[in-house]
């Protein structure tokens, strides 16, 4: 039986991604304490105890733009949403400064406050901001209630309740995995006999003596193991190296032959 805090399944599914986006960049996140343009506007309005239904648009626009500039001086990428709001504010400001053109504007436009839409958006947003607070409190209390974990029938292979999103994520992982395997196979195919010979020669040129096991461990596949074996045979046959085993079942050392050394160096240079 495994214990768990709320009844979340404790499996690999949980480990798909790190916790939340806040971990990315502390500094950035701090400045983004304003969730977005609406949040910033609400802050500016509350700070000066402004009546939300009668926003002094020029003053607010000025403060808003100052904040955006602050972000820019700190070399922080300003989210597009902030810039869109800046444009909206400037537009509203200009519209309020200019007397409405009676020729182009319809009757309804004459009476409409250019700020109306923004005010409505702010009021709507504010409700959800409060609701988020309520959710936070609920989660806080609920997080202090502990339940018993699942009766694990098979600890190595626990069963979980999955959602369609899990299915998609798993499917994507499988595709990624298949792609990785494929790429590995392609890499593997590229290793030819002559490349193997060059690999061993280069190692010998650098170190004069190498442990044969090391070279075998470089092989990524059975095919490459065989290739390595054949390459050693070839090099022994050509008297490029000798194989030395100091004791029965001991390590096998490949040593460059004395008289082969100059040739090896030449080879290494020419590459």
């Amino acid at each position: 039986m495994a214990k768990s805090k709320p009844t979340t399944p404790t499996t690999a599914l949980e480990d798909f991604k790190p916790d939340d986006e806040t971990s990315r960049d502390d500094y950035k996140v701090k400045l983004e304490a304003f969730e977005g343009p609406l949040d910033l506007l609400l802050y500016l309005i509350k700070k000066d105890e402004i009546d939300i239904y009668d926003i002094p648009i020029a003053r607010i626009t000025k403060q808003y733009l100052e904040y955006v500039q602050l972000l820019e001086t700190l070399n922080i990428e300003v989210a597009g949403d902030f810039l869109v709001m800046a444009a909206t504010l400037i537009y509203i400001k200009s519209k309020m400064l200019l007397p409405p053109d009676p020729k182009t504007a319809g009757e309804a436009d004459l009476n409409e406050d250019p700020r109306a839409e923004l005010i409505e958006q702010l009021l709507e947003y504010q409700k959800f901001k409060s609701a988020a607070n309520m959710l936070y409190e609920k989660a806080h209390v609920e997080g202090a209630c502990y339940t018993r974990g699942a009766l694990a029938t098979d600890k190595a292979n626990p069963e979980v309740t999955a959602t369609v999103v899990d299915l998609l994520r798993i499917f994507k992982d499988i595709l990624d995995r298949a792609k990785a395997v494929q790429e590995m196979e392609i890499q593997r195919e590229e290793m030819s006999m002559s490349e193997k010979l060059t690999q061993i020669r280069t190692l010998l040129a650098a170190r004069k003596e190498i442990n044969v096991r090391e070279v075998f461990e470089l092989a990524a596949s059975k095919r490459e193991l065989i290739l390595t074996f054949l390459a050693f045979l070839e090099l022994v046959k050509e008297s490029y190296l000798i194989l030395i085993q100091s004791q029965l079942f001991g390590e096998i050392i490949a040593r460059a032959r004395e008289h082969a050394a100059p040739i090896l160096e030449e080879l290494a240079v020419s590459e």
Partner: protein
Amino acid sequence: MSNHHPEEVETPTNKYAEIFARLAAEEKAEAESEISNLKSEMDAVETEPESSISNFKPDLDEVEITASLGELKPAIEAVLFVADEPVPFNQLCKILGDVNSADAYAAIVELMSDYEARNSGLELREIAGGWRISTRPQHHEFIRKYLKSKPSARLSLPALETLAVIAYKQPVTVPEVLEIRGVSSSSAIKTLLEKRLIVTKGRKETVGRPMLYGTSKEFLIQFGLRDLNELPSIEDFEELAS
């Protein structure tokens, strides 16, 4: 309290219980023949195919045991003790056998007040459409000390805000969330999906057929809600806001 899509609350199992029953019968025969097909198709690598096949018993074979009236309370307590998720009332009744559901409900309520009355460290509550025993929040420090665990990571404010919008506006698309929050919410939505607090709820029949999102059962559990109706109405936040 207003109505927030009560139908979203039900688990798929409840929602489709009767459809399931019908389909179950249809698919049972099908599945059985498929299994034997597959069995012969596969090169019999498995060592113990007969045991796993015989484990596949339809629920109908169940020997019916019914809890006596006096047994109801302790039986419910025992079942809820081992349950790792809230047990819906209907499921509980089915487990208890051929019991009167009013009796079963009375037993639950009595059990709940027993826990209250005796100053227990545990509590019995209805949550996420089911009944659950959990520890009381005031003992969390001792439990954390025993489990050597830290409180679970909290949701970030953007994630909470996004969750609030989804909870109240569901089913809702990503652009709709953006419109209310005034800021891109994709990464918050991704976080919420990863934490299983929201789920996809089909597609919206508009251009591009975007995915719709809604809250999950896990949301109800983690936020201690019986169902979505228990959320205060969004209009209640209006006075708070101004």
